């Protein structure tokens, strides 16, 4: 390999942050050029977690793919498979029963809660270190997340990669007493979330570390194609659940929290408010769960028999990180001709080189943490 000098100007310290670094949230490499403690230039390098999901899609049958997509963004599996399944359904014109749509919403929102809890915990690690108050927050959040994992396990048999979404419906129906279990967990979570909110928002160190740090102007957010909480924290009320409703989201009543400044603190508040909204969506959908079938297709025995008509379709869902879109091109066979995944984390971390220069090293971590990238999602 060619040796490259990355330290050019005298007085600049070039350090390699990652790919193995405690707070890069996976495998991510930042080439930081520092003057003292201040970042003057930054070059992000991605691709360490590339697993070739898009290429893999061209070699597998449609019904084999949703589980693959669940591995994509490993903090919100069902959102990924939902985007793919929606694209296929759009292309093939498959109707989804109402009950299945409700169940999709329930799992997606529960996993949004779980994902945001992981984010809050790891954000604590970024700000407070794994040997300090940060790890306390981290462990508390993971304890809460465990309740959601338990719910998923009782519902689907799997804690995490649930295989809930199938083309044409969902795989598992709820059992008797599921709503009681969920309501109990939601009440518990609601109490805990307000507790953490109080704990963090009255903590001067947390406020000092997040307020006015990593301000993403609205224009920049739009320009790089940011979405999700990152975009909303900058003041753009764009939520696919509201603007282009899919599944059953048009039937529920919920708010889209928006920030005004676009700093790390706004991104934190937006996510925390979103968690409250998710609680309310799950309550509404479980309260009004319609009767009926959960699947509109017959059980799949030979995946190669399922073919989609020639054409293309794009479906997007609001994953915990933003607009997760799947663009599907079909040549009429039993396998996709080409799939392009538009992943929210990829666009969101494109902000980094724009806003990082001028900040201190310590802010690098809090900015990266507040963007909530998942590198499985970035590299696909």
């Amino acid at each position, binding site marked *: 390999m060619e040796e490259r000098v990355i330290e050019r100007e005298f007085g600049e310290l070039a350090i390699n942050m990652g790919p193995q670094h405690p707070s890069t949230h996976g495998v991510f490499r930042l080439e930081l050029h520092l003057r003292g403690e201040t970042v003057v230039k930054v070059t992000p390098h991605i691709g360490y977690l590339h697993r070739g999901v898009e290429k893999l899609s061209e070699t597998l049958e449609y019904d084999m793919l949703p589980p693959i997509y669940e591995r994509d963004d490993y903090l919100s599996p069902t959102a990924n498979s939902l985007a793919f399944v929606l694209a296929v359904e759009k292309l093939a014109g498959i109707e989804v029963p109402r009950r299945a749509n409700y169940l999709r919403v329930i799992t997606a929102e529960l996993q949004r809660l779980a994902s945001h809890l992981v984010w809050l915990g790891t954000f604590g690690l970024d700000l*407070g*270190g794994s040997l300090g108050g940060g790890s306390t927050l981290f462990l508390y959040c993971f304890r809460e997340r465990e309740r959601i994992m338990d719910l998923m396990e009782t519902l689907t048999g799997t804690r995490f990669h649930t295989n809930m979404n199938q083309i044409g419906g969902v795989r598992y129906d709820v059992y008797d007493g599921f709503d009681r279990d969920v309501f109990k967990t939601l009440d518990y979570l609601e109490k805990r979330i307000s507790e953490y909110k109080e704990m963090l928002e009255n903590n001067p160190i947390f406020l000092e570390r997040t307020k006015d740090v990593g301000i993403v102007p609205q224009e920049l957010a739009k320009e790089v194609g940011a979405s999700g909480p990152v975009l909303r924290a900058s003041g753009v009320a764009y939520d696919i659940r509201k603007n282009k409703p899919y599944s059953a989201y048009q039937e529920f009543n919920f708010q889209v929290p928006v920030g005004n400044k676009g700093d790390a603190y706004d991104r934190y508040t937006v996510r925390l408010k979103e968690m409250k909204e998710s609680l309310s969506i799950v309550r509404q959908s479980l309260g009004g769960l319609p009767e009926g079938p959960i699947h509109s297709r017959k059980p799949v025995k030979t995946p190669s028999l399922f073919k989609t008509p020639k054409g293309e379709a794009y479906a997007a869902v609001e994953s915990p990180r933003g607009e997760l879109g799947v663009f599907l091109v079909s040549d009429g066979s039993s396998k996709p001709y080409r799939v392009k995944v538009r992943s929210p984390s990829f666009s969101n971390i494109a902000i980094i080189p724009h806003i990082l220069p001028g900040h201190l090293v*310590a802010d690098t*971590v809090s900015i990266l943490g507040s963007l909530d990238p998942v590198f499985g999602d970035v590299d696909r």
Partner: protein
Amino acid sequence: MTFAESVSHGAILLGAIIGVVTYLTWVERKFSGRLQSRIGPYLVGRPHGWLQPIADALKLLSKEDITPTKTDRFLFNLAPIWVVVMSLLGFAFLPLTINWVLVNIDLGLLYFSAIGSLIVIGVFIAGWASNNKYALLSALRAAAQIVAYEVPLLLSLLVPAVLAGSLNFQDIILAQEKYWFILFPVVGQISGITFLLAALAEGNRIPFDLSEAESELVAGFNIEYSGMKFAYFYLGEYAHLLAVSILVSILFLGGPLGPLLSGGVWIALKTLIVFLIVLWIRWSFLRLRIDQMMMLNWKVLVPLSLGNLLVAGLWVSLSR
């Protein structure tokens, strides 16, 4: 004390401190475990993993002793020894009961703080000799931080000295027979709190552990160290923390003074309480940024402790 007596007492003290420090790590792990709704060490030695510190020490001892090739060998190996020696030296001046003190000199307080401030040199050597950019950044941070926080540390240390009218630890203890200095209205509390904060900063504890901020600098100055050399840094850190806890109990909580129980028990109790408060702070707070930390020091702690010292001085001179 004769020379032989001093040496034997010193050896006993050294062994006791190392033993206590080893078990303080167990206390910390148990305490943080309970705080985070975990159990903490449990399996090595029932009940409650009481053999864990020994297992840790054995594991660290049996690890390969690595000196990376591109480091400055002499300085790299000197740094951990320096840190341990300087942290342990301070204990020589600390009275553990009213009469039991290894080196009783009139300038005990001054000596103690002078030696405590030498620890940073070891940290800086470690960061410099490691030939690692993260370690270097951390060393620079450590130097800036500790030099800055030395000021409020000393200024708040001087308040008990002014109130007692002496720099000798025994005199300071005896001056607290009527009331502990922490109970001295306003002045005592302010100096106690500023001292604790400055001591946290000097001991590299959260919220001021910027020089080993592992979410930014991976591990900071000890990034290249492993095995027993790493353990030396750990030992030094905890020994210093123990010394600071003892110092707080002596200067502000009356040290060995207390009813019924003997002096040694009282000082141990008070030290443990101070230590647990430090742990409590560590496991509940996030970390400050370097500029915010400097701001806190120069804009809040230094003026506060300076004014506080002035008030204490005025009060003493007027009441005389």
